[in-house]
């Protein structure tokens, strides 16, 4: 695992496999049915934890089977890194990665993305930006709206659902939501949906803080060149957060709840100072 430096290829393949899996029920397959809200794989019911939460709140019923199906997914994602869903499963991520590529190719954008308010920039100063508590406020607002209207409000406007529904059953006007996300990212060069709005990601992000699979930075090899924070689709905060550490600490885990384990920082680090780590095994220093 240490020598793999093209995680993007592996990750994209997994994402495309997920899309293929989502298309199998439409083609008549029965081993997998459903979508990213709730599905059934070989008889096992699996549900998105946020969708379960929102449905529970909207319906005012505690549905044991549904909660169990959400719990299985919670457990699975705790093991594999929390927000790994965003980097490795979510189809909107494929679209937004591509949007990043288009944005970079167009060259006429501001260099920096807006960091989380209060984050320490490489030069030591504090950055202004959208409040870091925004994702939690958004989560609370969606849940409150769902309770009040007795509708799964996020479920209705969710662009992830729109993309999957359009892939499975045909194009409809819901794609406008996705177009808005793409335009925002092109104009502001900020993955605002993923960083501040999507409550699905917020829930997974909380899981990731204690997950056994995380990216780890080896300070012995790090030259503070800043490439990792440049390529990080989440604004660089996950890796910036672990920079200022005393030299005595050799390895630091990236536990920021925005980190999607996408592996771009690992791929691009010229000193190979970043890698995935499972269960706090000591990382071997890279050979220079």
């Amino acid at each position, binding site marked *: 695992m240490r020598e793999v430096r093209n995680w993007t290829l592996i990750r994209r393949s997994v994402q495309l496999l997920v899309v293929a899996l989502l298309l199998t029920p439409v083609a008549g397959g029965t081993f997998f049915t*459903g*979508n990213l809200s*709730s599905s*059934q794989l070989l008889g096992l019911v699996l549900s998105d934890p946020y969708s379960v939460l929102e449905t529970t709140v909207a319906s005012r019923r505690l549905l044991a089977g549904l909660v169990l199906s959400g719990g299985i997914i919670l457990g699975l994602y705790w093991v594999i890194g929390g927000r790994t869903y965003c980097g490795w499963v979510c189809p909107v991520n494929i679209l937004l990665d591509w949007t990043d590529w288009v944005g970079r190719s167009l060259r006429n954008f501001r260099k920096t993305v807006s960091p989380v308010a209060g984050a320490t920039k490489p030069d030591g100063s504090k950055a202004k930006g959208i409040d870091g508590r925004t994702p939690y406020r958004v989560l609370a607002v969606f849940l409150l709206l769902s309770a009040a*209207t007795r509708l799964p409000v996020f479920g209705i406007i969710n662009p992830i*659902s729109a993309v999957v529904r359009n892939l*499975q059953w045909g194009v409809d006007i819901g794609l406008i939501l996705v177009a808005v996300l793409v335009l925002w990212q092109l104009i502001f060069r*900020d993955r605002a949906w993923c960083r501040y709005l999507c409550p699905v990601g917020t829930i997974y992000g909380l899981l990731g803080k204690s997950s056994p699979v995380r990216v780890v930075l080896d300070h012995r090899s790090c030259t503070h060149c800043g490439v990792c924070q440049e390529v990080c689709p989440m604004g660089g905060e996950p890796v910036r957060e672990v920079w200022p550490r005393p030299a005595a600490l050799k390895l630091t885990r990236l536990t920021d709840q925005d980190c999607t384990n996408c592996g771009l920082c690992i791929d691009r680090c010229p000193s190979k100072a970043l890698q995935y780590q499972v269960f706090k095994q000591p990382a071997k220093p890279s050979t220079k």
Partner: protein
Amino acid sequence: MQQKVLSVLGGMLGYLVVKNLKNKNGLLRPPGAMEEEAFLATCMRCGKCVSACPYQAIKVGDASQGAGVGTPYLAARNKPCYLCPAFPCIKACPSGALQDVAGRDKVDMGEAEINTETCLSWQGMRCEVCYRACPFLDKALYVEPFRNTKTGKHAVFALYVNKQHCVGCGLCEYVCVTEKPSIVVHPKGR
């Protein structure tokens, strides 16, 4: 600047959602569906019932359904519910938005209604195609002839819906021979 744009967008979105709260069209839901408000709250929009239907009669609501986007519905004129005894749609539902029914006759999707002005049987012509298609022959759809006063020497084999037995499956609407069906299912009153 970003925060302001985000707030405006959020406000617009919230307004749109609240404005389109109820699904406007009174859709025919799969068998076992809860009453509409509870259904919209409980349905996970997962599409498993859609895949489970062996007749592909259940469709997915698109964005024009407002709050019903992603929820399952039937268009009886395209494909009715054939009332599979095993109800695979109900079994597939993860949240109980589709609840178990005690039997085919206990389903309550809606009620059929005959337009006596366009119905061929009611005009005195012998049609009765819906009568024969109905899974509850003589119970949900029955014939009661009366004298045809226009000709003076024939009977009109008039068809009637028994609301107590009609489950709203839509087989009648599906087979009706007139271009615009003379018998339609009204989804159960929410």
